[in-house]
């Protein structure tokens, strides 16, 4: 089924597939390497392949861009959650309060 959707070329007049560039940029600047960079690479492929009328290639690059951006986003969210659990549940809250007052 996926093969079929890939082999169907969309009409040239329609808009290019979503290239996930903004999402990749956000993942890159909010620190979840190297997934954000991979996202930008595939976003670049979406644009350049669409420009030379390689519609299937653009569609495939769009899927890859989506994949890497989502991996980056969810890994980053997962690490945030783990980090917060570590800070608050394992009693590092006290350490944080001390270091905070020392810093200010």
């Amino acid at each position, binding site marked *: 089924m996926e093969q079929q959707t890939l082999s169907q070329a969309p009409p040239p007049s329609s808009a290019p597939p979503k290239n996930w560039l903004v999402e990749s*940029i956000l993942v890159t600047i909010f620190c979840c390497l190297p997934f954000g960079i991979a996202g930008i690479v595939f976003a670049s492929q979406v644009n350049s392949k669409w420009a030379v009328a390689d519609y299937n290639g653009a569609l495939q690059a769009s899927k890859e861009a989506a994949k890497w951006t989502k991996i980056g986003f969810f890994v980053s969210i997962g690490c945030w959650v783990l980090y917060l659990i570590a800070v608050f549940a394992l009693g590092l809250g006290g350490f944080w309060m001390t270091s905070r007052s020392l810093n200010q």
Partner: protein
Amino acid sequence: MDKKALTQFILVTIAVIVLSLLYFFYPAATNRFYPTCFFHSITGYDCPGCGSQRAASALLHGKITAALDYNILFVLLIPFVFYAAFVFSWNVFSRKKIQQHIFYSPVFVKILLCLVLAFWIFRNIPAGPFIWLKA
């Protein structure tokens, strides 16, 4: 109106407000509970995103020079993120859809990619003018 887009719009708006308040009242430079970059903690080198949490706090306080010092790439990309947010919001509420033209230009993405990679390399050179790029 597209319900999915409206839901996304509401969720992103709430997230932006909550995070802005968090980074405003608890600046990342003086609070240790923010997660540090994994690339940085493993290798000791800066990634292109290092310093962006501190830069976000600095920007929220209007300290543009400090923000540039933490992460110049982050500050330069903020206008593009606002542009994307504007186009997205416009498409949620307006019947006439517009496209994110800048982001679909092949040249723009290539320049951006080179910029990110160059920034990643140069900010880790501990000499000369590059020290300023460090987080």
